[in-house]
């Protein structure tokens, strides 16, 4: 068995088997009536539903719309999270000044902000982006903060010994590159975190995959709901893979 698992084809075969088993279980659940009637779509109806969602011109615009507030929310949350995490980890004054505020705001779930997102931005991309950015902000804030706190202090001594002791010079030449693996892994987690809040953020009525999913569920079209779930999975996988490539390139110096 271990020999079989050691080769790539063997692992792929098992992966496919797992998938087939899952679909079989799903089909069985429908056939034998394990779920409440009408609530479980037929897995074999999903491809047709996907074609229908694309042909009817709903899926692609929904993906496009989701990507707009996804990109904005991700960019804003990442930039601010890294910046505030960096300031907190490198400036004792800033750290002390923001500590209580961060402690109070941190436990508030991003979705709790939906109320204010609607009040401030109405139903718009900006509102959804705002809600998404909050979750992303905290992920990046903590990742950046702890990555910087873990930078080897001996590198700072090196910087001071060779004329890079000033705040900007030191953090540009030592802190940022030294903390980059941690910062990048925070950014990558944020890419996922943003998806997690995206669908919920769209419940406030901004067009996107979440809204389409909700609309499909409203009319009992559960096969279409599955189509949107799979579309979300696909877009996330592509985004994560793209980020993985960037990360690999930037961290080529690591053994």
């Amino acid at each position: 068995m271990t020999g079989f698992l050691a080769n790539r084809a063997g692992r792929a075969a098992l992966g496919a088997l797992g998938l087939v088993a899952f679909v079989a279980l799903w089909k069985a659940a429908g056939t034998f009536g394990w779920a409440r009637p009408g609530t479980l779509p037929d897995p074999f109806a999903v491809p047709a539903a996907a074609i229908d969602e694309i042909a009817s011109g709903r899926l692609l615009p929904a993906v496009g719309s989701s990507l707009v507030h996804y990109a904005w929310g991700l960019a804003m949350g990442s930039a601010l999270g890294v910046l505030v995490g960096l300031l907190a980890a490198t400036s004792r004054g800033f750290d002390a000044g923001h500590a209580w505020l961060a402690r109070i705001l941190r436990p508030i779930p991003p979705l709790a902000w939906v109320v204010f997102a609607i009040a401030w931005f109405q139903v718009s991309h900006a509102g959804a982006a705002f809600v998404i950015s909050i979750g992303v902000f905290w992920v990046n804030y903590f990742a950046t903060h702890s990555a910087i706190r873990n930078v080897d202090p001996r590198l700072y001594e090196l910087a001071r010994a060779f004329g890079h002791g000033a705040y900007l010079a030191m953090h540009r030449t030592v802190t940022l590159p030294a903390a980059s693996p941690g910062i990048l892994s925070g950014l990558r987690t944020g890419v996922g975190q943003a998806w997690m809040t995206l669908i919920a953020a769209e419940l406030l009525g901004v067009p996107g995959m979440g809204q389409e999913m909700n609309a499909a569920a409203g009319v009992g079209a559960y096969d279409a709901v599955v189509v949107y779930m799979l579309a979300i999975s696909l877009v996330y996988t592509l985004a994560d893979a793209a980020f993985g490539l960037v990360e690999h390139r930037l961290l080529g110096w690591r053994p």
Partner: protein
Amino acid sequence: MTGSVLTASGLRLQFPGSATATLDGFDFTVDAGEFVALVGGSGVGKSTLLRVVAGLLAPNEGTVTLDSPAVSGQRRRAIVFQDGRLLPWRRLRGNIGFGLEGLGLPAVEREERVDEVLRLTRLAEYADRYPHQLSGGQVQRAGIARALAVKPDLLLMDEPFSAVDAITRKTLQEEALRIWRDTGTAILFVTHDIQEAALLAERVVVLSGQPARIALDQRVDIPHEDRRGSSDLTPLISRISEAL
């Protein structure tokens, strides 16, 4: 070049939470071009003294003065760390140029300086490698190259060869001597290895006690090429041992 490159006077340094001072009323000078070995047992404060001299640790009292004239495009002192301490995300070339950034040198001249010390330390063929692709001895030579690139009048070396194997250490010791002759820089070389001090230095300074005092300050007049394996060093080595 004559006269001193470094004058430390009245140094007092006590770490917070420590009952006794590491240094107290400590005076010390290094002459231009001189190779001084600073020997002492572990914890006696030789690395601390080196850090004070390097400007990395502020003394509670006393002053450290660099006596050579400041020249643009140069740092008057540079340090070689025990652990090599290269920046893992920079290739060797970038690591060696680290101290040259911020000196206001044109990029072309920075590159020339890096090439020059790469040749001097026999690292030219590894210039584009990352630190994790270098051997322990190469990392140590890179640390020396980085320090030499800023053309220091005083090269501070903190047990630079203590972490490498015996064969590499011997090679590096020979190279340190060659580099010292080629560049004419003064070297303050911290070591706990009596043999090493006796092999390399023109002047051996032994630290002992708490706070640290100079227990021996001895010139070594035997030519370097006659030292390795020579019994002439035996009296010197035993005097250092006694002072410790």
